[in-house]
Structures are given as C-alpha cells and as structure tokens.
C-alpha cells in the first residue's frame, strides 16, 4: 500500500504471531506500512505486541503467518539480506563487553562487511559525533546508561542501515541524554533514514514521529499523525467556563443553549467537582479562586459550617464544561456571542488541551497491564 508521497520502507501485512502454549495471538492480523524516510512510532501498552512485531521485522521472531517486507525484502524468506539493511538499538544494553567501545563499532562494521580502513574512519567519526571519543578505548562496563545508549546508536549506524529500529530509545535516560538522543533522531530523519521506534513516552512520540500506530492485543487500533489522532479524539477537546447566569436565567437553560452551538458535542455542569457557592453574603469575589475542575480551591473555599442556603441559580456563578469537536479557541467567539444577550457574566475560561496520552488511554483503556 504505497502512499502517493513516498516509497514504502517497511510493510507488515496481516501479521500473526502465536507463541507456543499460548491461547491468544501476540500479534493478531497486524498491517501497516512505513514510508521511506519516515519516523514511525509504534505505541501500545506492555504486552500489546510491539516488541513481537519489531522482532519479526528484525528477523528474531518467526511469524506464524502474514508478511513482513523491509527495504523491498521479504524478511521471512530472506532474513540474511534483511539484516544487511536494518539496525536495531535495543532497550537494554547488549554491547559486547569483551571489546572496547571502539572495537564494538569496528567489529560490528566488520560483521557487515565494511572494509578495515573504512570502518576505522567511520568508527572515529561516530565516536566524535556521539561525544564518546574521549572514552573510546576503556571498558564498556564503565559506561553509564546514557553512554551505552549513545554507543548502541552509533553502532547501529556504522553499517549505514536503511531502516533503524529503536526500542524505547530514551527510557531510563537523564534529561540531557534524552535530548541528545532526540537530536540525533531528528538528524537521522533529515538525512532520510527510515526509523521505527517503540515507546511508552507519549511526549517522545508526539515530539519525534511523523506518524504513530497504536496497537493493543496484537491489533492496530489507530494510525495517523499525532496531531490528527489528537484532533480525532472527538469530545476530548474541552472548554471550561465559569458563568454567572443573568437574572431569570439558569444553568440548565444555558447548557441547552450552548449545546446548540456548532462544534459543541456535549455540555455539562461540573457540579460534583465544584459545589455551587452561595452567592453574595460570604464575601466571595465574582470569580472562583483555584478554578480548574475540582482543584484544591474547591474544597478549601467552602465556608466553614455554612448553612445550606438555597440561592436561585441566577445569582451564583456556575462552572460548565463543553466537549468540543473543534479547536477550543475557535469556540470562544460564539460562546461570548451567545452569553452576552442573556446578560450572563463570563468570569473564567480554561482550555483543556488533549494530548497523545489521552488518545492512548481512550483507545487502550485505563486498566493496568
């Protein structure tokens, strides 16, 4: 399924993997394609089938059925040719501890048939690029997690792979090392290397990838650019308003009116999180302190031993939450236009931006794995 805008670097078709003595498929009819030069993120909870999928593509897991194509090569039929064109950066160090860091690079290049002079030159260049030149000839055991990760990326690049697999590339790294790795990934993308990365870090996925595929139970749940996935999360884009209804008006009537607006999927009064305050009397200013849907302000602001005074809706500010199908900012105008003729006073506005994590949770659920 070659897209119009690029050749396919990796393609998985109806891939199934069932491990022996298991009653469910680890990968269950998965299909997706990664374009040449694309950074593709494979997201999913633990045990979703990401690692197995990458295992099949990197020739380490035998598929039960289906097809896996890498750089035009059928991985299942010709794993040796596929290995020449791919590189893997695993999550946990698998560096050769009997060799120095430099030798890790040169031997890896030798395995891939790079000539002696060439591999020495490439190793030196990569060691410098990855800031490891000073520690190139010590024991690998002395390397920190971040250094080992950098060395593994350098090792993956020395035989000039067409497709690079990164398994949780920044898990367990400090922020400096993480930024460094992110920068290298962006550089590689600019150079046109196809990258398939698996991650749990939604910020990382949103930051680095062109497209993501979300998998669970071995099936693809969604695949698109992070922005489109977030946009597609209908009703998850949220606008919260604090409104004091005008005389003779009330919250229910306001809600009914707001739902009528184009772009509003649903509207509700945030009652549980923010009990209606008695207006006037207690000396509260018009706006609520600590606004934001059940924040610390809600409970603390409740008057001590306050008598439950029934106040008509019209007198108290109410908090309303609108679930939108459009960008929240574009709704501000219509909302104000609707409120003004009703003499409703808008005292606070809060835009709740959904993230890739919301998409992830929406698709894969909240349950622990």
């Amino acid at each position: 399924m070659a897209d119009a805008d690029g050749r396919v670097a990796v393609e998985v078709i109806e891939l199934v993997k069932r491990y022996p003595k298991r009653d469910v498929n680890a990968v269950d009819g998965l299909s997706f394609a990664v374009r040449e030069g694309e950074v593709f993120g494979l997201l999913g909870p633990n045990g979703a089938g990401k690692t197995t999928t990458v295992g099949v593509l990197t020739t380490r897991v035998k598929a039960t059925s289906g097809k896996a194509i890498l750089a035009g090569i059928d991985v299942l039929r010709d794993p040796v040719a596929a290995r020449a064109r791919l590189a893997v950066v695993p999550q946990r160090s698998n560096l050769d501890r009997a060799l120095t860091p430099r030798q890790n690079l040169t031997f890896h290049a030798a395995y891939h048939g790079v000539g002696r002079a060439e591999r020495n030159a490439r190793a030196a260049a990569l060691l410098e690029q990855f800031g490891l030149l000073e520690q190139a000839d010590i024991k690998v055991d002395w390397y920190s997690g971040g250094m080992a990760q950098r060395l593994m990326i350098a090792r993956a690049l020395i035989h000039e792979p067409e497709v690079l697999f990164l398994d949780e590339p920044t898990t367990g790294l400090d922020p400096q090392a993480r930024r460094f790795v992110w920068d290298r990934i962006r550089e590689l993308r600019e150079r046109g290397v196809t990258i398939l990365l698996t991650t749990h870090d939604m910020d990382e996925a949103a930051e680095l990838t062109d497209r993501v595929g979300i998998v669970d139970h071995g099936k693809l749940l969604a695949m698109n650019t992070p922005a489109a996935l977030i946009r597609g999360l209908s009703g998850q884009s949220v606008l919260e308003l604090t409104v004091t209804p005008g005389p003779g008006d009330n919250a229910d009537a306001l809600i009914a009116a707001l739902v009528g607006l184009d772009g509003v999927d649903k509207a509700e009064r945030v009652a549980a999180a923010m009990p209606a305050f008695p207006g006037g009397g207690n000396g509260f200013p018009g706006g609520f302190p600590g606004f934001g849907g059940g924040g610390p302000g809600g409970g603390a602001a409740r008057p001590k031993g306050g008598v439950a005074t029934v106040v008509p809706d019209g007198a108290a500010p109410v908090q309303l939450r609108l679930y939108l199908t459009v960008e929240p900012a574009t709704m501000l105008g219509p909302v104000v236009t609707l409120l003004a003729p009703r003499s409703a006073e808008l005292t606070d506005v809060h835009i709740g931006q959904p993230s890739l994590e919301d998409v992830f949770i929406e698709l894969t659920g909240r349950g622990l794995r």
Partner: protein
Amino acid sequence: MTTVDIAAPATGRISAASSARKAFVAILWRDVFVTGKELWVLFIQVALTPLFMLFIFAKVLAKQGFVSGTYGHLLLPGIVALAAFLTALQSVAFPLVMEFGWTKEIEDRLLAPLPTSWVTLEKLVIATLRGLFAAVIMYPIGALVLGSAPWRPSGFPLLLVVILLGAWVGAGIGITLGTLITPAKISIMFGLVLTPLMFTGATQYPWPTLSSMRWFQVITAFNPLTYCAEGVRAAMVPEFPHIQPWICIVVLLASSVVFTFTGMMTFRRRAYS
C-alpha cells in the same frame, strides 16, 4: 571530522553469499581476538583441573607407592583428551549461557548478515580450536609434571584426528548445554553434567580393563570422551590396552554428527522465538 553519510544509496550491495562469508570470518575473528586477549583466563579455566589430576594421581600417589611409575604414561594421554574435550565444552557453554541469558551480547552477531546456522558453526569452530590449544599446551606441561612423557611421532596423525573430533564433540555438547541452560541453573550443569562426563570418560583408566566391572564399562561406553581418550592412548601409548582406533574414529564421527545437530537445533531455538 568525517561525517558518516547514512543516506548514501546502498550502491553495489554485495551478494548474500559473499556477505555471509565475510560475516563468518568477522565473527570468528572476534572470538579469536577475544580468546587471545583472555588467554590466561582460558588457561586457568582449562588447564588447572587436568593438571591437578595428573599431579595427584601420577606424581603424588606414585611417589607414595600407591600407583606404579608407569601410570603417568597411561594417565597423560587421558588428560590430554580430557583437556581438549572439556575446554571445547566449557569455553563455549559458559559464555553462551551468559550471552543468551543475561548480557545478550550475542545479539549483535545474530543480526549480522549470515544464516544463524553459520553462527552456530562459528561457535563449533572456535571451541574446537580452543580444545586443540588446550591439548597442545597440556602435553608439555604434563611432561614437566611427570618428568617424562611418551613420545611416538608415528601416532601423530591419529592423535590429531581424535583430538580434533573429541574437541568437536565437546563443542557440540557445550553449545547444546549452553543454549538449553539458564544462568540460574549454571551450577546444576557443573554437578550433573560436567563431573560425570569427566569421570566416566576413560581418561584415568583404559576402557578394556574395565571388563571386571561390567556395569561401569557399559556406562563409560556411552561417553564420547571414552573414545577420544582411548584414541589418544592408541596413538601415544599403544602398549596399553585400548579400543581399536577405527572404532574410536567412527564413534567420535557419529557423536560429532549427533551433537552438531542438537547444537544447531537448540541454538536456533534460543536465537529465535
């Protein structure tokens, strides 16, 4: 600074066979290089047990009159066979247990552009070479410990053949064990496999003389090491009773086929999931 141009088009991709050959040589060179760097480790690992055995049985006990002076000449060939067999076995089994079970070091070689069976083959070759190395150093050291050693140049061709085959069988068993056993069970391997192998391999006694202990003779007949030790004896000290060399060679050949096969199978199962 030279930058590595990752996006360079993959011009002139070498053929699969040629890339596999290059990769094979490179991973073999890696193991030779590492072995050379840690030669003293290998030496201690392989030479110490046989050396102590030789010293106690042939030197100490002979000095005290418990064994005859000629026992040393019977034991030394057995010790040379033991060193070749055991070195090949251990020097591949232990690293494989760790590389597959813990350090994952082997992954980089499994991802090299060559068939997985070639990676297994490379392990068989390097282990056999290490076994050969152990046999070669054991002989002069043994001679030094004993003060004398049998010398029979006409037996060299047979000696070389049975040592190589013995080491190959040891390597096959080592790969099979190394890919079956998890790091947590490594000590069980020692107790349950290595020790029985060492003592039922006719290294300390000539097999034909066991006829007085029929049950033990039968047990030792199942240990490939017996045929290696008997073969070395036939080559170096034919005056002692020994199994016919052709039987030794046939059994060792059959064993190498069997254990090469099991090694290939278990290695493959471990390398793939």
